[in-house]
């Protein structure tokens, strides 16, 4: 197969000492003591506070805004409306240009000039001496709205004659995409049977415990804007702010403060970000804004809400031979956020880990009068997994073959990699059957049937479910600042200490610790002498921050490239000092030594002394002064030019980690309440740099996955009003809601990454949706439940049980 593979570098680095070790996170000591510095912890002299007035209507024309009462309140400094801000600011910059994805563009402004398109859209902004005054003033702004019909259903949105949301468009279709392979018509004609139905994912969101927060300062004398942000993307945010404000990009500095969780939600470009920067620029005063929780629910960016209509052709032996899927995604109002592309990822991941030769996949992305989608961990992959896993369970039920056996029958086999899926995606590596075998052993799957019967005799209904998630990482889109490259600078100081500056950032997960581990091993350095700096556009090399689990996958690889160069130079100088060839040297714990004579050694400090203090001396004179390197790494296995793609396609993801979840639940058929008794997961993200941090990350993925599957729901009513705007009605899991997780790692190295890594960050969040459905169905086999929708609230589960009973299922 003519796929370009990463050339595995030979002897480029010391033996692995830190990579693979459970090193505790470097920032923990400060954070656990309450000494973090989040954006909200920044205080500047003369700072003003901001409050937004947000639309109470899902869809309405703005006739008139009267700010006189708000302006009259003592302490109010400025009230900003569209009329003023749109005179000065250009349209908001897209970090992903819609045209690159074949989608439509809407010209969007920081404040909507004519009409509002969702409840929570900013309409006006108040700057005041304190936040209480700002809030009070915002509430006194009078807006005269002309209410318009709200479009709240994505399929109705696409009907001819539907109310138009974007006036320049002729319909509510943002974009579409079709994939096709083989001969689906023939596969269906020749099938032994067909299953069909609709799977729905409901709307939920990332909702980090730290809401969005920013502090901005504009120095008008120097002409420089400094923007402290709880963001994942300092460089993209800089580009957005500069472009929209009309400032030179190099005059804008974005500094990522400590980030209190992000999960995709803290990616630009929010109109709120443009507005507070504009106020600082305009007023010449520092501005602070910390989002309120209700604002996060209303306007912080949503995710999910897709309908997947499917039919699958199968043979009696359980093999699935044909698949037709029609996806309709409800991405809310068009925005400059990156969320709508999640729908494209859903389509491009189907049929996930299965070899289905004849596929027809159609995607339609609809805009509606709801909050825009923003990126959220899972990024559309969870919906593809949900569909394929429900489908496999359905084929198992239809053929009478065990659920695990049906999956084993349809898996892409280890020798098939790199495997080309219908969308053009090239899956890098994996061993699905081995992972399944491992999971079944963890679960003691073969014995479960007897356990279930024993429990049933005691009046307890328990069931087991499995699901296989595919979580591609390293997202790389054309015409965008979401790409598969990143930079790293390594500076070694005159005393031999190592500063690592990265273009990737940490949303609070600790990748700076992992990157330090990679650099330490590549150099043979003492981990304690390595200091990682991230998130400051003034200091760090250009880079794309944190998304799609790329910080180790791509940022770690960039750090390794830079460290390889530093090591080579240090070895050249050391070889002069030790009078041997560089190839005869190795390094460990900051000592460079002759491989065959370990005591014949110099320390890093000896070498840096020669480089910095004895530049004209015998050991350093032949080499360029200084010990600093910037390297960029670009991941292979991504194709934006079809003529280069081995199969003439398009492929946005280099790396394809996966995981298998198995859970045991207890269901109370009289109330629909579900309790997870066991949750097991076999995980394969290739090489794991830090098992402690990786496992912590996985636990968080399970929690969000289970939260989405069972508890969390953004509920809109028929008028487009959001009914869930606090943690009292949008219920993320607490410690008592979650089980103890059991995790095993399997490491199938990626051939496309110098470390064999695949990215861990999103794993775990996709499988719970189907695994829990599967377990509930299995707990009550006589009812033949077919759960295709989430969240699995007691009400929904009880309703499904009642419908099945009324249909006569389960009667002897």
């Amino acid at each position, binding site marked *: 197969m003519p796929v370009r593979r990463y050339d595995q570098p030979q002897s480029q680095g010391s033996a692995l000492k830190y990579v693979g070790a459970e090193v505790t996170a470097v920032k923990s*000591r400060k*954070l*656990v*003591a309450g000494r973090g510095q*989040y954006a909200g*912890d920044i205080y500047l002299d003369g700072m003003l506070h901001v409050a937004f007035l947000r639309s109470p209507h899902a869809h309405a024309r703005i006739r008139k805004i009267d700010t006189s009462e708000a302006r009259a309140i003592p302490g109010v400094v400025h009230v900003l409306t569209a009329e003023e801000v749109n005179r000065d600011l250009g349209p908001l910059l897209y970090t992903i240009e819609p045209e690159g994805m074949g989608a439509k563009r809407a010209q969007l402004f920081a404040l909507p000039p004519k009409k509002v398109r969702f409840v929570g859209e900013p309409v006006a902004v108040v700057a005041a001496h304190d936040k209480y005054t700002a809030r009070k003033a915002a509430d006194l702004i009078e807006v005269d709205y002309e209410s318009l019909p709200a479009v709240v259903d994505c399929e109705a949105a696409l009907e001819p004659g539907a109310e138009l949301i974007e006036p320049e468009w002729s319909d509510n279709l943002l974009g579409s995409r079709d994939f096709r392979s083989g001969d689906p018509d023939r596969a269906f004609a020749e099938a032994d049977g067909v299953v069909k139905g609709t799977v729905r994912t409901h709307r939920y969101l990332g909702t980090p415990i730290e*809401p969005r927060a920013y502090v901005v300062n504009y120095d008008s004398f120097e002409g420089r804007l400094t923007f402290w942000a709880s963001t994942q993307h300092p460089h993209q945010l800089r580009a957005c702010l500069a472009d929209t404000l009309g400032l030179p990009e190099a005059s804008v500095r974005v500094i990522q403060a400590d980030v209190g969780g992000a999960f995709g939600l803290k990616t630009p470009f929010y109109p709120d970000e443009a507005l507070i920067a504009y106020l600082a620029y305009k007023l010449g005063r520092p501005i602070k804004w910390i989002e309120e929780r209700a604002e996060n629910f209303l306007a912080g960016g949503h995710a999910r809400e897709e309908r997947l209509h499917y039919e699958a052709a199968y043979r009696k032996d359980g093999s699935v031979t044909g698949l037709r899927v029609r996806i309709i995604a409800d991405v809310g109002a068009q925005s400059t956020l990156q969320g709508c592309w999640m729908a494209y990822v859903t389509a491009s991941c189907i049929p996930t880990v299965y070899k289905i030769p004849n596929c027809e996949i159609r995607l339609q992305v609809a805009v509606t009068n709801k909050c825009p989608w923003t990126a959220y961990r899972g990024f559309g992959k969870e919906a593809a997994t949900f569909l394929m896993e429900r489908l496999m369970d359905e084929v198992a039920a239809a053929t009478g073959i065990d659920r695990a056996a049906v999956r084993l029958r349809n898996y892409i086999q280890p020798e098939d990699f790199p495997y080309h899926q219908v969308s053009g995606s090239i899956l890098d590596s994996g061993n699905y059957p081995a992972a399944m075998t491992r999971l079944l052993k963890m679960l003691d799957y073969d014995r479960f049937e007897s356990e279930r019967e024993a429990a049933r005799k005691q009046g307890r209904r328990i069931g087991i479910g499995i699901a296989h998630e595919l979580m591609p990482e390293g997202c790389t889109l054309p015409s965008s600042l979401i790409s598969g490259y990143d930079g790293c600078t390594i500076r070694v100081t005159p005393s031999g200490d190592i500063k690592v500056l990265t273009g990737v950032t940490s949303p609070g997960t600790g990748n700076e610790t992992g990157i330090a581990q990679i650099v330490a091993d590549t150099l043979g350095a003492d981990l304690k002498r390595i200091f990682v700096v991230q998130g400051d556009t003034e200091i760090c090399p250009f880079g794309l921050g944190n998304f799609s689990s790329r910080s180790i996958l791509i940022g770690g690889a960039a750090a390794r490239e830079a460290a390889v160069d530093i090591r080579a130079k240090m070895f050249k100088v050391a070889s002069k000092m030790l009078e041997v060839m560089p190839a005869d040297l190795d390094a460990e714990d900051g000592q460079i030594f002759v491989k065959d004579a370990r005591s014949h050694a110099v320390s890093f400090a000896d070498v840096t002394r020669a480089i910095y203090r004895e530049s004209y001396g015998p050991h350093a004179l032949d080499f360029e002064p200084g010990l600093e390197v910037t390297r960029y790494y670009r991941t292979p296995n991504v194709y934006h030019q079809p003529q280069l793609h081995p199969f003439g396609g398009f492929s946005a993801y280099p790396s394809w980690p996966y995981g298998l979840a198995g859970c045991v639940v207890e269901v109370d058929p009289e109330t629909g309440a579900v309790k997870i008794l066991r949750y097991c997961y076999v995980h394969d993200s290739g090489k794991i740099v830090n098992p402690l941090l990786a496992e912590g990350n996985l*636990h968080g993925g399970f929690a969000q996955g289970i939260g989405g599957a069972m508890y969390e729901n953004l509920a809109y009513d028929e008028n487009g009003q959001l009914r869930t705007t606090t943690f009292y009605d949008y219920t993320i899991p*607490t410690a008592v809601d979650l089980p103890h997780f059991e995790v095993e790692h399997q490491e199938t190295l990626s051939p496309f990454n110098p470390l064999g890594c695949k990215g861990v960050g999103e794993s775990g969040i996709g499988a719970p949706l189907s695994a829990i459905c599967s377990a509930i169905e299995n707990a009550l086999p006589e009812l033949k439940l077919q759960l295709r929708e989430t969240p699995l609230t007691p009400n929904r589960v009880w309703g499904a049980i009642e419908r099945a009973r009324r249909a006569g299922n389960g009667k002897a």
Partner: protein
Amino acid sequence: MRVPIEVTVNGKAHRVEVDTRTVLADMIRDQLRLTGTHVGCGTGSCGACTVMLNGRTVKSCCILAPDVDGQEIMTIEGLADDPRHLHPIQEAFVVNHGLQCGYCTPGMVLSALQLLNENPHPAEAEIRRGIAGNLCRCTGYQFIVKSIEAAAAKMASKK
């Protein structure tokens, strides 16, 4: 309207003037600049703003600052002010990776402190109940539970 109040915070007496609308969390953060107390929801649901008021945990986003006049508060900063000498609970969180982004952590640590003060040998279910008022979005709670178990063992062995 502003009113003067006197509070003892982390053992130190303060006299501050507060707007009567100010919640305790904002006074602690904005006026005393003890920013380890975080605000995650403002509705008393997430627990990031947990502090000790007269030795008991409270959610400081739901208490008005004037109401704590004459009372005693401990924030996370009061638990340790030297990175080399963290409280055993904090040390256990570091070692067991009981935190990721750290935003919920100060509240979580103080809830754990209250739990261990009342119940030095909690079972796993008791720990989970003890921190059920503190939301964490990063960890799935498992390593937090493990940290508190480890801290309990350490603190018991020191007695």
